[in-house]
């Protein structure tokens, strides 16, 4: 009987420790690092696409092939596509492929922008490809990749 009681109380105690642990974890969850594999980011960026045009001619991607520092890598995209009321670029996504979090920026555009252009700075942890995806308002996807050599990683 004593043994049973001991078991009973010990499971209770163990359970409460577990619960407490979970609660603590949940509190910090908002600030915890979350890894995002490239496949997941890419699937999200191309969800519901009617057509994916790889290595699109319309897209002009400008990234230095060997930047000095991986912490600040300039990325410049221009897409040769009209920005009219019913025919425009809706979304531009910039994704590294071998960082821990493979999503840098999602830009949401409207016809009021007048031009499909985006320039930004991203972090790269090492030598890898950078993928830029642009989505038109009728879900056609333009995609272009470029390999970037990084000697000094920026994700330390």
């Amino acid at each position, binding site marked *: 009987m004593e043994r049973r009681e001991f078991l009973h109380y010990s499971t209770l105690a163990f359970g409460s420790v577990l619960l407490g642990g979970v609660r603590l974890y949940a509190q910090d969850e908002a600030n915890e*690092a*979350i890894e995002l594999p490239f496949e997941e980011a890419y699937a999200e960026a191309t969800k519901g696409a009617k057509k994916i045009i790889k290595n699109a001619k319309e897209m002009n991607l400008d990234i230095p092939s060997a930047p000095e520092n991986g*912490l600040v890598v300039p990325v410049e995209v221009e897409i040769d596509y009209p920005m009219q009321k019913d025919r425009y670029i809706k979304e531009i996504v910039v994704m590294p492929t071998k960082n821990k979090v*493979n999503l840098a920026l999602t*830009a949401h555009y409207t016809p009021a*922008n007048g*031009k499909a*252009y985006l320039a930004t700075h*991203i972090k790269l942890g090492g030598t890898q490809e950078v993928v830029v995806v642009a989505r038109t308002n009728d879900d056609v996807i333009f995609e272009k990749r470029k390999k970037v050599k990084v000697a000094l990683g920026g994700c330390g």
Partner: protein
Amino acid sequence: MKFSWRRGVIKPLRNNYKIGDVVIFQAITIHPMDTGFQKDKSTGRVKPRFFVKRLDILYNDKKVCSFDFEVSSSPNPKVKFPLKITSAGKVKAVWKDNMGNTFTKSVTINPK
């Protein structure tokens, strides 16, 4: 954590523009953009994730475009985007980070 968001700039990169022109604007702010993977060298503890989540651009109080940042953006995130000038007025940028801070800056547009 103590953080006071003080600096940010939004400006057109060209001074002489007319109505109907497409002008490139630049929005940049000072923010550490911690990824949550790095360790603080002085204390040895992991720095929590702290980054700019969203930037909204409003032209005369109408939303024109928006940007969702992730931790792979560089520190002091910078974007350049085009905007079609339709009238005189104000272009406003609103930054929000994952700790609930916001920062607003605007620029007056007067086409010649």
